């Protein structure tokens, strides 16, 4: 029962309280770049969720079952990059085959998931937080992906409405987007300290 509770708490923690975008400021590039429309933002969130879950689990396994026993922690970053790049390639091929329109609308942002620091960040956090079983690593990785999807969808929703607002000339475009992101982050700061 304790493990189940820990899982649920961990999941909520990584989705809301320790959201990678809002509290760690990771993955800001796609967060601002692909949040113009909700459907695209959701697609991006799904792609990132898939990649982050796959690479979180794989890197945890590689880290705990290969690198640590052999004493090769120095190879951590290199291995993580390898896993993430491989996972992104897989997603790219899958999308191209089954969702060609989504594949085309992502354009350059799909291969750029490779360099999405939210993913690399989560893989390193799993180690930093001292996660010691595979199930918890899986739940946290998936939660981080859901958290990212939530963040980018909220942002896209706000920006869709912002298109109709009377924004001062000097703040149109990137400035108002950054201000929005800042206010949104402050709103989520209200959750800080609830769990962990």
């Amino acid at each position: 029962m304790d493990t189940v509770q820990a899982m649920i708490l961990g999941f909520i923690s990584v989705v809301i309280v320790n959201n990678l975008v809002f509290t760690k400021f990771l993955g800001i590039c796609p967060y601002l770049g692909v949040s113009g429309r909700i459907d695209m933002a959701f697609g991006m969130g799904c792609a990132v969720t898939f990649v982050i879950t796959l690479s979180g689990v794989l890197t945890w396994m590689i880290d705990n079952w290969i690198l640590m026993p052999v004493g090769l922690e120095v190879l951590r970053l290199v291995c993580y990059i390898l896993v993430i790049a491989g996972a992104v390639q897989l997603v790219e091929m899958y999308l191209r085959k089954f969702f060609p329109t989504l594949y085309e609308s992502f354009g350059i942002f799909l291969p750029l998931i490779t360099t999405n620091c939210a993913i690399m960040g989560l893989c390193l956090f799993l180690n930093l937080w001292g996660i010691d079983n595979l199930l918890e690593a899986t739940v946290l990785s998936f939660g981080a992906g859901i958290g990212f999807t939530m963040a980018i969808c909220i942002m896209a929703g706000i920006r869709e409405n912002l298109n109709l607002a009377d924004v001062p000339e000097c703040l149109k475009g990137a400035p108002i987007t950054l201000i929005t992101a800042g206010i949104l982050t402050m709103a989520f700061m209200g959750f800080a300290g609830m769990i962990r």
Partner: protein
Amino acid sequence: MIIQITGNEMILAAIDIQSIIYAGVTMVILGGVFAIVLLIASIKLKVVVDPKIEAVHAALPNIDCGACGFAGCASYAKAVVADPELLGKCAPGGADTSAAIAEVLNLQVSGGGAPARPIVHCRAHTADRTYYAQYSGIESCTSANVLPNVQACKFGCLGYGDCVNACKFDALNVVDGLATVDYEKCTGCTACSKACPRNLIEMVPFSYENMMTVACSSQESGKDTRDMCKVGCIGCKMCTKQDDAFFMIGATIAKLDYDKYQSGESAEAAMKKCPTGVIVYRGKNAPAPRAAGQKA
């Protein structure tokens, strides 16, 4: 691995060969496993693309403007390979692109016509218009157009820039309350003409560098138009007497038939005779139109 650091000097006392081998072997195995997984995936998830579609796609301008009626260049390429009758729909590419696609598809094409470019059928700037009230709602022509009295003229340019937002090429600007086309940047993608809620923007075949146009859409009577706008068309029929290409729609507004239009003296004369100066040139090097109230 043991490294001794003394001052600025770094002496590699001993290198543990074993850990280097371990590192190398680990990376080779990991890399190999991922390579095999990706290889299998690339075979299983292979997408077969017709080389003709790729060649047609390469010939297109690749700006995804949607003038052809398809979502983007890629889907137009697919459609035109399947159905060659769709050739020549690419407005930004024009005749050159059609010829390039025809070469890929082994077809014969000739001609292509003049490239179509948008003309805004209004020439009134803020100072030329009459306003009954001040509009302070959402900055969009579509929503402003819902209100009957946003400006006196129910047919003229609203100047909130729906066309500017629709343009992907930065070729439109609202200059002093009037949407103005930059013909150097315009590709003729028709996005602006679809965006205008008052249907002011007409796609005109530019057979000359500068095209003449009746820059007004007002359907009001001559007197009402004159009351509301200093530069509107009052339906005086002066131009129709000078040049055959001009004709009247009802009794209120003149129009230019671009099939008949020839740049020349009679057209110039019609322009000079126009009492309100609503007949103007639009184009890359169009001469500035007469100011409101000024005689030719």
